């Protein structure tokens, strides 16, 4: 009994500060503490991915940490990453695009059709199709003043339906040799299948990532993205034609979706009706895991890469570790909440909607 009381009276003395001091860390509310916390917050995506890799290495050993598996991870990340890039452009302006998954399915199919019609360079048709969807998104959203969520939700539904109509549910296959069976719609393009494999797929993605980084960090366009997410009204008052800019942003996002669909076509070797279903959610999750706030104004290409990679590694690692599928989903959901909870600076946020 007595010792119980003693313990209780001891508790108030064990303040946060002393605990931090004991760990050799500065008090989190002091100036140097705040710098430390901010630095931690900025680096959450990098810390998270390191921990995730170490964890799966520990659990699954060489099965996870093998050249073979990392080759697969390098193949599994690009489509998601390119979609996350599309999402990053839109999210930075404070909007959201949930039509990217449907758009991916649609434009991959259009790319395949383009190649059927016009030969190898016909894949451009897919890129244009994706940009067209982007332009439509942007135009409806900015001119009719319908929120981007609602606009792109409608587009998610419509574009998938258009894909079903255009394709009649039939797949178009990519093959590396002439097809003998005339009932199968297929295009012969070995180079495309090669592009879908390691290492070409990695080179391509790195190139896109570097170019996007330059656009995002160094150009007037990239700067305006963040400004639009920061305060749209001020931009309007300075005479910047915000509507036109929003259309450009969604078109640029559409272009990224076009690249993603092209890579998806290369990697999966076929354009199917279901391609990209639910991928919009993974794309948003990757952006969020990369520490980008969904309310706009801030963002990072590099951290989005880390976010997409983390998401892929976790899905891959959990399967290899033999975690049952439903538990694996719970783990992925929790990871998302924890990572974002740590990386958010709640003092900067007034209202959460």
């Amino acid at each position: 009994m007595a010792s119980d009381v003693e313990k209780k009276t001891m508790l108030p003395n064990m303040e946060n500060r002393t605990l931090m001091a004991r760990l050799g860390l500065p008090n989190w509310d002091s100036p140097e503490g705040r710098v430390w916390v901010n630095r931690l917050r900025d680096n959450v995506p990098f810390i998270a991915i390191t921990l995730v890799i170490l964890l799966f290495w520990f659990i699954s050993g060489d099965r996870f940490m093998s050249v073979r598996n990392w080759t697969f991870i390098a193949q599994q990340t690009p489509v998601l990453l390119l979609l996350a890039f599309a999402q990053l452009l839109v999210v930075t302006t404070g909007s959201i695009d949930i039509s990217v998954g449907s758009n991916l399915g649609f434009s991959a199919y259009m790319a395949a059709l383009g190649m059927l019609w016009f030969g190898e360079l016909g894949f451009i048709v897919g890129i244009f199709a994706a940009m067209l969807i982007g332009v439509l998104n942007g135009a409806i959203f900015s001119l009719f003043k319908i929120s981007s969520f609602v606009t792109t939700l409608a587009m998610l539904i419509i574009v998938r339906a258009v894909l079903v109509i255009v394709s009649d549910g039939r797949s178009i296959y990519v093959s590396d040799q002439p097809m003998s069976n005339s009932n199968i719609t297929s295009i012969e393009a070995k180079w495309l299948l090669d592009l879908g494999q390691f290492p070409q797929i990695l080179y391509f993605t790195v190139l896109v990532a570097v170019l996007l980084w330059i656009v995002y960090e160094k150009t007037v366009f990239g700067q305006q993205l963040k400004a639009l997410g920061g305060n749209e009204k001020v931009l309007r008052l300075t005479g910047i034609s915000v509507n036109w800019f929003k259309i450009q942003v969604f078109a640029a996002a559409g272009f990224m979706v076009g690249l993603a669909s092209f890579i998806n076509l290369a990697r999966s070797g076929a354009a199917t009706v279901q391609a990209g279903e639910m991928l919009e959610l993974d794309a948003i999750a990757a952006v969020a895991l990369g520490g980008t706030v969904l309310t706009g104004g801030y963002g990072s290409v590099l951290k989005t890469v880390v976010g997409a990679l983390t998401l892929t590694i976790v899905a891959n690692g959990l399967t290899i570790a033999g975690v049952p599928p439903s538990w694996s989903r719970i783990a992925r959901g929790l990871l998302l909440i924890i990572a974002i909870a740590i990386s958010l600076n709640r003092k900067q946020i007034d209202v959460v909607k």
Partner: protein
Amino acid sequence: MKRFFHGVLGIMMLAPISFAEAVTPRKDLVFADLGQPQTNPWVINRHRFQECVARALNIEQILADDENSESKHVSQAESLVARQPDAMVFNPLTSPAGAQVARLLERNRIPGMTAGRVVVADYDKEYNGQFLIGQMGTNLDAWGAAMAQAAIDDGHRKIAMIWNPKDVITTQYIWAGAQRVIDKYPDAEVIMEGRDRLSRETGIKYAEQYVARFGEGEIDAIIVLGATAGLGAQFALEQAGRTDIDVITCDIDEQVAQNIRDGKLSFSIGGHWMGGGFAMIHLYDYLHGFPIEDTQPDFSLIPVNASNVDAYERQFLNGCVLTPNEIRNISRVYNPDADLAGFIENFSNTWND
């Protein structure tokens, strides 16, 4: 063109048998059809075969789909009922949704029949209404069992699978059949379960993860539900150079047939989409005053391997499986001696004779 040809042929063949009719066939019938969206090859096949039946029997069809949503399943059924069709064929998305559609049919006195999934497990014991005249089912257990048996017969013992999540109840029944067979062989085991929304892309992803997880000799085969994901898995294995792993799948389209012919796939099983057409014939007879004989016929799927793939492709993948004449021949309206129940039961054994 082929369809047109079949149609012409049908009209020409109609003449000699028409004097044998028991009753005057109605030519004004309108059937409603409710199912899932055309994002799956088998849904398209279902519609294709139903269209053949509709032509042979002079039925007009109104098609609707439920976008894979329970609530839309019911509301679409209501919209269809508002059009006052003579009968309805529906594939319940889930049993509860199906039960609601059945109640709707009873209230509006419209005869209906399920095709594919069921409303109640045992129609004669559990169903009290009169307008849901029967359930044209698929033998799900036998379906799964056939897939597993094919794997076992090929000498595979270490088996992984790629399936729907557990909340998709019907596919659980299929898996139960597979599991039952695997359990019969003490040396056979399911070494890993992957459950996800099934698409070509998820098929690829899981196959790659299994390849990373299991070295040569640690895995013999992957059983994949549905050809779309199955072809994805097989594509990934091919890309990874793992010819030691076999893919067993279900549904057969031109691409699956080609791969079976090429020896890339050893086995698939299909034809369950014929149920919709058979349900139409049941309802057609019922509307002409013939009571239903077997309220819960089960269609057994057709196993396909290298030995019969050419025949299957010839008969099932081009035009109509049955000629208009053959279709009318299993309706009692045209043929008083027709034995529809027997035909359905034996079709998987007799189709290739």
